[in-house]
């Protein structure tokens, strides 16, 4: 019995043993299946969850003004977020957090008790707040480093600079237009993450270093910008105007020196301001230019040779029936020479000039001066303006267009048209960004002055300048624009505003403007001042011209232009106030007596001087860089007739 039970248990133990062995074999085979047969597939599946493409945004580049004054900076900001599921004791934490962050307790507890895995508690906290939250050491409440954009000059040029949103997305202005440059290459790395989405530091995984975005230097001059904004505000307040715009351009290069809009916009708290207020209207809005547009007509008429400066026109004593309507002048004039038509701004005279010119030719010049299509300025939202094609013109349009009605242009377009008159007849492309720097300060690229086309001859441009000088200095409508010590050429405008609601023109709404350049014969700046819906007085010559005078006076001083030196010798002080003064080696500019056979020495000239000189000598130049000419090819003395183009290297 005992023996049989022993053999019985032996066989049962053997059976149990075999059963266990079988189970081990099954487990071993299962392991083989999972690890070898399906191993690669499962491993890939794992990598999909471990390795997350982590996009790292580089530090956004700085925006500087032309003398390296910072206008937009990126700071290391911090934000507080919550992982509600990891949070214990939300009640107690809520009170402490609400106190530190200055938030409502109810709001904090709502976020702490959210059923989402990730909730922002407060974005962009102060360093002190972050420190105190950190000190609480609550599991589930964490600090996230977020870049914060800061505009040290506040509202200054706010419309131009634009702004970035809370997630560093560019939304307006230079920030938007040059976003790719400023933002830089966002780096991405495959990082290991744990199941809660946190990064895991695994040995061998190097912290990814990505270069910051590029810095951008504007052509904008902070001092001139500041002056323009100050004057705009003063005028707007004085005349209870709805707003104002000022555009200051370097006429030879197209560099924007100032671009101001009133009311101002402070990009530091963009959320507090209406979208309307964020718009850079100097670029994005078009308006009826009014009488300032007569310069376009006049230049066209002179260029086409249909009039000369002294041709007399009968101005019908203030009333002129034309195409079924009656054209009025604000003052009744009899016979006026062509130049006085512009200087006194006679609509009837302008109509008669336009009749002589005819609409096809007038239209050709409207287009040549750049109206009806974007200037190509490097800022977002530029419209083409509204210029109807000539075959759509009604008979009355020839008259209205002659004094700038029924057509709409942007402030920048108008400024560039005047710049063409100022610089001797060449339409330039305007630009606001001068160059971009890499992280080590090396120049990555530069915007070069770019010629759009020649619009009128130098002779026409000079004649126009003389006529426009008379507007300011010769008893014309722009007398109040005169700047002490400088000769100013310009034109006033007082346009009716289109009634957006009823159509036609609003009874009382006016746009007062003045556009001009100084010094008239060696212009260093072209400036347009527009005052929108002034109430006390509506005339451009009264409202806008004094603002021009104040801004231009300050700007010319800032640019170092010596007063009363109105000859062709450029002032020794350069546009680059920060750069050292260089001794100029070049001889006198004019080489015409020698038949312009020799290439002169350009070394030491500023960009602007070089452009002016090359144009005078009818040399094609290729510019590399900005600042001062340090090298030229071919060198001075070569036969100018034999070279295709002159290459100038500039630095500064």
């Amino acid at each position, binding site marked *: 019995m005992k023996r049989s*039970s022993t053999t019985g248990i032996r066989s049962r133990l053997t059976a*149990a043993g075999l059963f*266990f062995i079988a189970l081990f074999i099954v487990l071993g085979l299962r*392991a083989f299946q999972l690890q070898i047969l399906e191993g690669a597939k499962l491993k890939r599946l794992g990598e999909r969850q471990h390795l997350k493409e982590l996009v790292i945004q580089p530090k956004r580049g700085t925006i500087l003004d032309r003398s390296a004054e910072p206008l937009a900076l990126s700071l290391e900001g911090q934000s507080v977020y919550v992982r509600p599921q990891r949070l214990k004791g939300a009640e107690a934490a809520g009170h402490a957090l609400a106190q530190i962050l200055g938030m409502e307790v109810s709001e904090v507890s709502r976020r702490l008790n959210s059923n989402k895995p990730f909730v922002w508690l407060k974005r962009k906290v102060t360093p002190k707040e972050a420190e105190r939250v950190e000190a609480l050491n609550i599991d589930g409440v964490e600090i996230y480093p977020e870049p914060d954009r800061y505009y040290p000059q506040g509202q200054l040029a706010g419309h131009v600079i634009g702004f970035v949103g809370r997630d560093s997305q560019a939304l307006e202005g230079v920030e938007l237009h040059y976003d790719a440059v400023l933002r830089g290459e966002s780096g991405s790395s495959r990082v290991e993450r744990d199941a809660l989405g946190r990064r895991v530091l695994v040995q061998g995984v190097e912290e990814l270093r990505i270069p910051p975005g590029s810095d951008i230097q504007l052509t904008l001059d902070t001092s001139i910008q500041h002056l323009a904004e100050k004057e705009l505000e003063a005028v707007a307040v004085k005349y209870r105007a709805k707003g104002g715009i000022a555009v200051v351009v370097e006429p030879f290069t197209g560099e924007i020196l100032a671009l101001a809009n009133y009311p101002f916009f402070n990009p530091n708290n963009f959320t507090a301001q209406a979208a309307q207020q964020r718009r850079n209207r100097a670029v994005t809005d078009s308006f009826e230019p009014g009488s300032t547009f007569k310069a376009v007509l006049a230049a066209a008429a002179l260029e086409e040779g249909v009039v000369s400066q002294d041709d007399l026109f009968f101005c019908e004593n203030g009333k002129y029936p034309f195409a079924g309507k009656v054209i009025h002048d604000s003052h009744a004039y009899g016979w006026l020479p062509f130049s006085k038509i512009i200087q006194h701004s006679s609509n009837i005279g302008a109509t008669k000039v336009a009749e002589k010119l005819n609409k096809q030719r007038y239209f050709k010049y409207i287009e040549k001066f750049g109206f009806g299509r974007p200037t190509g300025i490097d800022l977002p939202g530029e419209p083409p303006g509204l210029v109807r094609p000539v075959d759509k013109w009604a008979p009355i349009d020839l008259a209205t267009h002659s004094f700038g009605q029924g057509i709409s242009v942007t402030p920048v377009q108008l400024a560039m048209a005047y710049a063409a008159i100022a610089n001797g007849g060449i339409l330039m492309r305007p630009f606001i960004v001068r160059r971009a720097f890499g992280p080590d300060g090396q120049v990555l690229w530069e915007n070069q002055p770019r010629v759009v086309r020649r619009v009128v001859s130098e002779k026409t441009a000079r004649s126009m300048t003389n006529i426009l000088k008379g507007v300011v200095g010769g008893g014309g409508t722009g007398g109040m624009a005169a700047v002490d010590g400088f000769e100013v050429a310009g034109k006033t405008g007082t346009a009716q505003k289109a009634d957006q609601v009823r159509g036609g023109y609003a009874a009382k709404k006016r746009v007062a403007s003045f556009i001009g350049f100084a010094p008239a014969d060696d212009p260093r700046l072209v400036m347009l001042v527009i005052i929108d819906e002034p109430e006390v007085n509506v005339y451009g010559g009264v409202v806008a011209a004094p603002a021009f005078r104040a801004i231009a006076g300050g700007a010319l001083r800032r640019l170092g232009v010596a007063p009363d030196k109105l000859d062709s010798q450029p002032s020794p002080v350069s546009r680059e106030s920060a750069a050292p003064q260089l001794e100029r080696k070049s001889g006198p500019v004019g080489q015409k007596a020698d038949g312009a056979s020799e290439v002169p020495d350009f070394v030491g000239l500023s960009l602007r001087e070089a452009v002016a000189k090359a144009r005078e000598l009818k040399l094609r130049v290729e510019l590399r860089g900005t600042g001062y000419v340090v090298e030229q090819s071919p060198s001075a003395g070569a036969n100018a007739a034999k070279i295709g183009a002159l290459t100038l290297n500039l630095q500064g």
Partner: protein
Amino acid sequence: MTKDGIAVDGWLFCAVAVLLAVGITMVLSTSYLHAQERFADGTYFFRKQLIAAGVGLVGLFVAALIPPALYRRFAYPLLGIALLLLILALIPGVGLARGGARRWLPLAGIAFQPAEFAKLCFVVYLAHSLAKKSDKIREFSIGVLPHVLIGGLVLALIVVEPDLGTALTLGLVLISMLFVAGAKWSHLAYIGLAALPAVAFAVVGKEYRLRRLLSFLDPWQDASNSGFQIIQSYIAFGSGQLWGRGLGESRQKLHYLPEAHTDFIFSVIGEEMGLLGVLCVLGLFAVLIVRGLSLSGKLGDPFSQYLAFGLTTLLGLQALVHMGVVMGLMPTKGLVLPFISYGGSAMIMNLIEAGMLISLSRRRR
């Protein structure tokens, strides 16, 4: 191997020693980040486990020296104490509740799991009782029913904790021991049939258990919820492939696997040490079981035989269930891997059980 001139089962001892070494290493690997986050001390669990292993080794040597007959004498008091402790653990205010379960008793400043103690006591009781009734084993009311009733009581106390994994193992141990003791096949079948409604009730009664069962059948059906854990375990094994990622290199332990240092530690072994590591651990447990079973066959008296078999089965089944679960061959979860998973009570009791096997091995014929 000889120890004090007495023959000890060297294979068995070595298998346990190597498993213990692997286990302590894996506890450090799997718990480091978790401990770092929770206690700002990466070695928190590791140090506790080292202490438990130290205490357990002392227990192992003491147990190895105690003659097995002594256990037999205290079989009933031990079972009584075990039942009492199980009941105490369920009483609010006395037992400790963690994560919705009442499995612990505060004992000298540490949380002790009475179920671990009860497992051993139950096996000792069964070995004693089956040996005593070995002649009547084929009579249902004498040889089977009392053990089933006592077993059912122990199981019930563990099920309500709830600790289904432990209860399941214990049920299998009961059936195995009845089988080896010579119970009739038909009786074993009755037990199985009788257990079915209870199992069905336990599964359907709690929704999460049903979900778990369904996800076992097809984890990919609901990969982000109920199937999540087992899929994460698959990924761990798959990522290990043949050679493994290397010690400490597991990704799945970074919160993808829940309880990587306890219930899913074998998955991390699979990931860090590959198929080779998995087969080694399987082999070590196989050695343990084969040596335990052969020891059982070599022992002279039924009590020693049943005790050796019961202890072997207890350790072996826990290992098999743990490994089967993490490889998706079985539903349920919540079972530690003997000698390897983190957990003081289990570690100490498992080492004592191993010590008892060694003690038995000294009495081989």
